[in-house]
């Protein structure tokens, strides 16, 4: 257990104190006490910062379940460092923001901060774990804490719906991922990511390689809201806004991106990895941008925007993975630029999307609505928020002088590189990327200008809007400043943060001692990327101006095309169908259940009997049958048949009794006096009991049973009879073992008894007899209890 382990566990441990602060110090907002956790962690990770410029990642080991190869190993390399800094840094800012956002008098703050801390710890666990199983544990912990946070206002129906949806989708993906991890673990023989990367050549040809790859991707896609699993993210916007800012823009949705980046050294270089991730990413990019324009709720708009931007990062990771492909060794450095673009955009996106969510929270807080149709003309009332929106929004649109511009240009470089070096029809990639960017530009304009410019309509707002308190503005101001700083000084982070992260995604590309060429600059000549950006601005402005004319296409889209519709239909359909299926066979009739059981017996016993070809007749061991034995057998058959065809209960009881006495006669003939005696007495008593019970029942009704049922009953009974007769005959004819009864012949010497049956019952096998007396006694007590309890309950009534 090292300090690094303690860093991951600190948020979990700290949750213990949160309720204490909330209950004991109600005057001070609980958030102030929680603030120290991300601050400490940020400082701790930042303290390891210089270590990153060298090339020795921090590795700490702790044995958890060694027998299963599960070790709580933590690994702080460039990629983990980038994520850890984002998680703790934005976590710190989000908590400051939430202190002003969440009312300390009305909200259950202890719940809020406990869930938040659990989430933070789990997220740190994901990015630092070296062991796949530990990673999975933390992965599900983020799913669960996110579920709790989305449903924080659990009194609202929409919150519960959103939480359930997010839970179902991310956990489904999580299970798929677990399966993928297990496959990967069995192919490699270890769960350690570092060791798996080390033996990449060995597992590439394993038959489990492709299934593991697909399943791991499924987990990443569901978590990162990739098409078509993106539908949970817009509904997760029912969470409090600090949560949306933290989980659903900066951290949790990037867990999938992290997983893809982390697994690139294992799977990257495989063509299907490249194709699937790139195509899914581009489709998500396009679909998210396209759908964002039609949203009226600002948070839903940002949710679709997040989906779209995650698609962008994902597609860049896909393209970048080609750097590891053997066919493209010559262009490896070009493709590695895509990886740089991905992590750079990931960093940028966390910053500007966090600030945008916070601004939306401010708008919501100060005007009482997030509906874009009600807002407008807030520019003079909320100037600071407007400036923040401009910075965040235009960074998202990819305009200078904001950091989004840099990563957008690098994104275009990435797709153009892919187009130039792979098949011809990859031309679709830059086209789709360009179109998506146009849509991105349009929704950014919608977001900025529909909210702040235009006519101010106070009658539509619940509150009188005014600028937010300073405390609420701190965090978005910090983030927006960072956006500007990154644009003007991108190389502040390029070698300290981005290059080490690149090195951990593409570990095999460099010779030891080498470093990636990471030089980000705003101006790199008059090239295709710049033309694309100018085209976006022109086309986007045009589309924004003519928005009213073409926005009708959104309503022309068939409703069935909507994935939410599909999800809801799927859910209700699954419920309805499982209900129908269960009701169709669990109909409460004992008769049906008996038919199932007996049919099953026929199929299983008879089927295996046929398959094993076990039928055998060997008459040589049979004894000679005497005439009185024939007579007895015939009498038993006649009495049994009699029971079937009589219409009165009492008569059928007599028939059953006759069978019983005849059986005791059989015991006499076959020389079993103990059995005969017992059978005689037991038969008498059961017949008496039957008479007693049935005396009180109504007369047997001539039941009108459908012929089909009768025939099926007949078939089933004949089937069971036949199967067991055949099994009996065959068992009699094949006798592979000698009987052991000769041992009991010595009963007088061994137990001092001449009656062999009795000595078996009370001496050799007394255990059975003992338990049978217990059974009998229990039955007696059962009868007594049933009768007496029923009576006493009746009396109470």
């Amino acid at each position, binding site marked *: 257990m090292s300090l690094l382990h303690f860093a991951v566990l600190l948020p979990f441990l700290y949750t213990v104190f949160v309720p204490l602060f909330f209950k004991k110090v109600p005057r001070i907002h609980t958030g102030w006490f929680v603030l120290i956790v991300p601050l400490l962690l940020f400082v701790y990770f930042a303290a390891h910062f210089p270590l990153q410029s060298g090339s020795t990642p921090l590795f700490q080991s702790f044995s958890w379940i060694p027998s299963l190869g599960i070790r709580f190993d933590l690994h702080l390399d460039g990629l983990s460092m980038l994520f850890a800094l984002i998680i703790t840094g934005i976590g710190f800012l989000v908590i400051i923001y939430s202190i002003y956002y969440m009312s300390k008098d009305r909200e259950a703050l202890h719940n809020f901060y406990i869930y938040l801390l659990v989430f933070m710890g789990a997220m740190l666990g994901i990015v630092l774990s070296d062991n796949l199983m530990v990673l999975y544990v933390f992965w599900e912990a983020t799913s669960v804490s996110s579920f709790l946070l989305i449903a924080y206002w659990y009194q609202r129906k929409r919150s519960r719906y959103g939480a359930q949806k997010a839970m179902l989708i991310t956990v489904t993906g999580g299970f798929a991922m677990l399966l993928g991890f297990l496959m990967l673990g069995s192919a490699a023989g270890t769960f350690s990511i570092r060791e798996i990367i080390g033996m990449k050549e060995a597992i590439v040809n394993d038959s489990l390689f492709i299934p593991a790859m697909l399943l791991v991707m499924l987990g990443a896609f569901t978590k990162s809201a990739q098409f078509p699993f993106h539908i949970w993210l817009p509904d997760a916007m029912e969470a409090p806004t600090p949560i949306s800012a933290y989980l659903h823009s900066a951290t949790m949705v990037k867990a999938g991106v992290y997983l893809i980046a982390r697994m690139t050294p294992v799977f990257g270089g495989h063509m299907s990895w490249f194709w699937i991730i790139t195509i899914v990413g581009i489709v998500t990019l396009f679909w998210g941008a396209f759908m964002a324009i039609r949203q009226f709720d600002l948070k839903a708009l940002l949710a679709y925007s997040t989906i779209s931007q995650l698609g962008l990062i994902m597609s860049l990771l896909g393209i970048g993975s080609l750097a590891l492909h053997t066919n493209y060794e010559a262009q490896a450095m070009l493709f590695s630029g895509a990886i740089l673009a991905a992590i750079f955009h990931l960093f940028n996106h966390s910053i500007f999307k966090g600030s945008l969510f916070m601004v939306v929270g401010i708008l919501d807080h100060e005007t009482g609505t997030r509906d874009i149709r009600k807002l407008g003309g807030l520019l003079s009332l909320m100037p600071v928020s407007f400036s923040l929106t401009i910075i965040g929004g235009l960074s998202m649109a990819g305009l200078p002088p904001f950091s989004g511009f840099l990563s957008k240009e690098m994104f275009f470089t990435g797709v153009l590189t892919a187009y130039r070096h792979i098949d011809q029809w990859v031309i679709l990639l830059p086209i789709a990327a360009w179109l998506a960017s146009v849509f991105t530009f349009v929704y950014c304009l919608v977001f900025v200008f529909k909210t702040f410019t235009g006519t101010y309509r106070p009658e539509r707002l619940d509150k009188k809007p005014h600028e937010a308190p300073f405390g609420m503005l701190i965090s978005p101001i910090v983030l927006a400043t960072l956006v500007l700083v990154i644009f003007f000084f991108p190389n502040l982070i390029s070698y300290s943060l981005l290059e080490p992260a690149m090195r951990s995604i593409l570990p095999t590309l460099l010779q030891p001692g080498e470093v990636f060429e990471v030089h980000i600059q705003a101006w790199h000549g008059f090239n295709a990327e710049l033309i694309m950006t100018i085209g976006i601005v022109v086309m986007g402005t045009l589309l924004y101006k003519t928005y009213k004319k073409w926005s009708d296409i959104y309503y022309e889209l068939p409703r069935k095309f909507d994935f939410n519709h599909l999800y809801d239909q799927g859910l209700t359909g699954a419920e309805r169908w499982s209900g129908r299926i269960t009701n169709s066979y669990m109909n409460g009739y004992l008769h049906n259940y008996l038919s199932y059981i007996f049919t099953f017996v026929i199929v299983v016993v008879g089927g295996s009997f046929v398959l094993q070809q076990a039928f055998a007749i060997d008459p040589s061991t049979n004894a000679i049958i005497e005439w009185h034995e024939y007579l007895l057998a015939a009498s038993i058959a006649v009495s049994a048949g009699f029971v079937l065809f009589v219409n009165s209960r009492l008569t059928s009881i007599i028939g059953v009794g006759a069978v019983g006495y005849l059986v005791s006669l059989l015991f006499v003939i076959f020389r079993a006096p103990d059995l005969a005696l017992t059978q005689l007495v037991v038969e008498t008593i059961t017949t008496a009991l039957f008479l007693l019970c049935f005396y009180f029942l109504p007369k047997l009704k001539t039941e009108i049973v459908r012929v089909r049922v009768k025939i099926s009953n007949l078939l089933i009974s004949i089937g069971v009879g036949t199967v067991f007769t055949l099994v009996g005959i065959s068992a009699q004819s094949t006798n592979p073992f000698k009987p052991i009864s000769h041992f009991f012949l010595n009963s007088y010497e061994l137990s001092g008894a001449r009656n062999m049956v009795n000595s078996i019952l009370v001496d050799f096998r007394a255990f059975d007899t003992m338990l049978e007396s217990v059974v009998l*006694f229990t039955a007696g007590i059962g009868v007594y209890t049933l009768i007496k309890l029923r009576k006493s309950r009746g009396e109470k009534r």
Partner: protein
Amino acid sequence: MKFSDLILQTAAKVLVFIIMTFSIYILFAGHHNPGGGFIGGLITASALMLLYIAFDAETIQEIIPVDFKIIGAIGVLMALLTGISAVVVDSAFLTQVYKYVDLPLLGKTGIGTALVFDLGVYLAVVGTTMTIIRSISEDM
């Protein structure tokens, strides 16, 4: 309806002794001849049932003031304790021992723990059967 059951009652008084004797015989003969605790218990129960049929339940309860549930429980416990007693003297559970001794009146007789066990079975059967029959009859 009141009907005279004098013949039945008189016959029962004689028959019950014969049946009881037979059942005890069956119980003890079980070791060497057909019989044993189970069948012996059932026959005892049938003798008691005859009494119930000939007389009424309250009378029988006065004559034999026992709770048959307790009889059954004692029987099960006896069977169990025979087993446990073997464990106490460091043998396997339910190890039965026997010995032949010369008794003054009966001559050479085998006595053993198996008999105690059989007696337990006997009591369990009597107790259970009578519990069931009495419960049902009281219910009517």
